[in-house]
């Protein structure tokens, strides 16, 4: 066999297939997590009938969406109507191609598998361009539905997304200036060499970025285009079944992509916290530390449910797991720490950070009301853009002065 061919074509193709296969399932469970977290914030029990504590709910939802009748409105443009969700989903998925989840490749059956699908040296630019393409799908969806509500929603949504692309880009420029490269892997490595995550010098940039990202993905408090209360469901009012599922898939994939970019650009990607603190080498195997923590905490929570002891069991479990994990890592019990595959630890830290961002997304949804459309636009144009431009200026000046 031609090894370079396998290396350069087959393995990335397999990675792509893996992503496309696993991602919808992951998105479905992300939806479950969202409903659960929202439920707990809203003093209610979120789905818990389908499967144990609702764990089969996403499967049920997926099956429902698949077997649902595919309704196309009478006067809708059939071709565009079917094309719109596809045009929305593909750029979202394509954005995942340049996201690296760990720092080092690992070998599998003698082949090197790198922790990303590809490493473009213009990855940031690629991502910005790809996310802009996703807007076409929304416009198409609203237009093709041939309904006033959908059209209004699509227009609003596209105007909002286009407006917030600008501060998004500007916020990223600060990081590009600091790292000197537009490649995702390079940016993380430069954070490693600089011994500081870019969140610290680029705090303003991060906030501009995150707020613009929430607006880009049409999430609360910027979700007016799909607000139930006003336009029923905005541009995807008329969609049902699998097409609707595609729109949702696109939205959640965008959330994941944006969160991943945030972690890579500002929070060190797969790097562990405190890389230089003495005695913190055990954190390198973060998974080794957190796995007992989460497992024992979960066991404690189960005991709580059965025994009705509030949350005491969970906290005890967490504490026990923390101690156990620390001991396992610090003293390299059973050789686990040194034998652990670096990619696993990198992937663990990366996933943890992305999960925190996703939680913040859900937290926003449970807390804030919605911005009105004109307030939304004025926030983007009058506040975020000047702020992000200012950030670039200040970064540039600081770099010249302090090197």
């Amino acid at each position, binding site marked *: 066999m031609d090894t370079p061919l396998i290396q350069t074509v087959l393995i990335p193709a397999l990675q792509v297939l893996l992503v496309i296969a696993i991602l919808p399932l992951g998105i479905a469970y992300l939806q479950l997590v969202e409903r659960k977290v*929202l439920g707990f*914030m*809203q*003093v*209610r029990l979120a789905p818990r009938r389908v499967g144990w504590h609702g764990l089969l709910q996403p499967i049920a939802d997926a099956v429902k969406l698949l077997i649902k009748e595919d309704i196309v409105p009478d006067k809708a443009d059939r071709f565009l109507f079917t094309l719109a969700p596809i045009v929305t989903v593909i750029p979202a998925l394509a954005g995942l191609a340049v996201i690296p989840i760990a720092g080092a490749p690992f070998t599998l059956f003698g082949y090197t598998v790198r922790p990303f699908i590809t490493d473009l040296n213009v990855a940031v630019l690629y991502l910005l361009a790809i996310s802009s393409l996703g807007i076409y799908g929304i416009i198409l969806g609203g237009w093709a539905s041939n309904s*006033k*509500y959908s059209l*209004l929603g699509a227009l609003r949504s596209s105007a909002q997304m286009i407006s917030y692309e600008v501060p998004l880009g500007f916020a990223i420029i600060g990081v590009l200036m600091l790292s000197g490269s537009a490649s995702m892997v390079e940016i993380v490595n430069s954070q490693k060499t600089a011994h500081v995550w870019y969140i610290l010098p680029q705090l303003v940039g991060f906030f501009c970025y995150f707020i613009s990202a929430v607006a880009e993905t049409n999430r*609360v*408090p910027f*979700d*007016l285009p799909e*607000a*139930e*209360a*006003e336009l*029923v469901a905005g541009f995807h009012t008329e969609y049902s079944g699998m097409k609707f599922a595609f729109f949702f898939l696109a939205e959640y994939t965008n959330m994941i992509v944006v969160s991943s970019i945030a972690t890579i650009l500002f929070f060190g990607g797969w790097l562990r916290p405190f890389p230089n603190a003495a005695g913190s080498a055990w954190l390198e195997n973060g998974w080794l530390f957190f796995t007992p923590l989460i497992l024992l905490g979960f066991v404690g929570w189960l005991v709580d449910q059965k025994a009705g002891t509030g949350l005491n069991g969970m906290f005890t479990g967490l504490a026990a797991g923390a101690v156990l994990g620390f001991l396992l890592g610090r003293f390299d019990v059973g050789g686990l720490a040194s034998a652990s595959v670096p990619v696993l630890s990198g992937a663990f830290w990366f996933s943890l950070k992305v999960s925190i961002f996703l939680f913040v997304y859900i937290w926003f*949804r*449970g*807390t*804030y*009301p*919605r*911005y*009105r*459309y*004109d*307030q939304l636009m004025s926030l983007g144009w009058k506040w975020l853009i000047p702020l992000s431009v200012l950030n670039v200026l200040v970064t540039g000046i600081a770099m010249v002065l302090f090197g």
Partner: protein
Amino acid sequence: MFRTEEMDINMGPQHPSTHGVLRLKLTLDGESITDMRPVIGYLHRGVEKLCEHRTFPMIEPLTDRLDYVAAISENLGYCGAVEKAMGVVVPPRAQYIRVILAELQRIASHLLWLGTHALDLGAMSVFFYTFRERELILDLFEAFCGARLTYNSMRIGGLLEDVPAGWLDRVRHFITIFPGREKEYEDLLTVNRIFVGRTKDVGVLAPQDAIALGVSGPSLRGSGVDYDVRRAQPYSSYEQFEFDVPLGRQGDTYDRYLVRMEEMRQSCRIIRQALDRLPEGEVRAKVPKYIKPPAGEVYHVVESPRGEQGFHIVTSGGEMPYRMRFRSPSFVNLQALPSMCKGQLVADVVAVIGSIDIVLGDVDR
């Protein structure tokens, strides 16, 4: 070459946030509203005609279903009107208990208003929190009269029975925990920039317009007009209670929100006074077995959570009224909606409808 057209859009009658079957015909110029025409009647059940064929006690369950969110105030007003027509004096204990029920109902209705208003604006969590408190109140009502929404709780001449054992303590417990819960909602909404931005200067109603359009209740008081039926035309011993009537300043949605939040606190205050000073005695005056008010007509108004609820009964000396007219506050307040929404954006319509707090059962009867 390019021209803009105004777009006609139809909101409702089936819509997640028009609070019932309300249809609004909007003419939009882009996002701003140039004309609005409410179309009602989707829930018209002909209650006034039905009342002409029912005896006076049989009408009371019908009044529950007018403003189904605040049914106690309907019961109270109706019984008060018939008692006025007959010249019956309700015993003081019954009057105080009626006040307690009415104020509990006011809190419950405002909680529902708050939850749905916040939900329309996007703050979903507040909806669940307010309903958590509303459940407590509905449990109290269920203990008192057996029903959670349509109570039929009062009788002409007083109440059917005295309160169940322990009920008064439960009410006291509720008003002890309620201010803390209300603080939760305030923390989430009152100082939230997004909420303030959505409600300040939205749906402004000038006081002269409000009076001319017949608006009543918190919508009127939000514009600064001091008219509360409990103060101006006291009924059911309200003159014996000390409470403040909150007034707004600008007449925008935010002021109406603040007025209702403060009203909930004042209701707690009234309930506390009523519990402290509850007189002993019987709970129903002596009324004849067949209620036959003498011929004539009366008009009795009460302050429902929505505004001035009026009951105009024309009696002919028989067992059934000759004409029964319900002056519903939501019907009249809805009339003010177009003038509040002119020039506003579509997204504001939802906020304004939420702030005038209409119930379609009340509008259409």
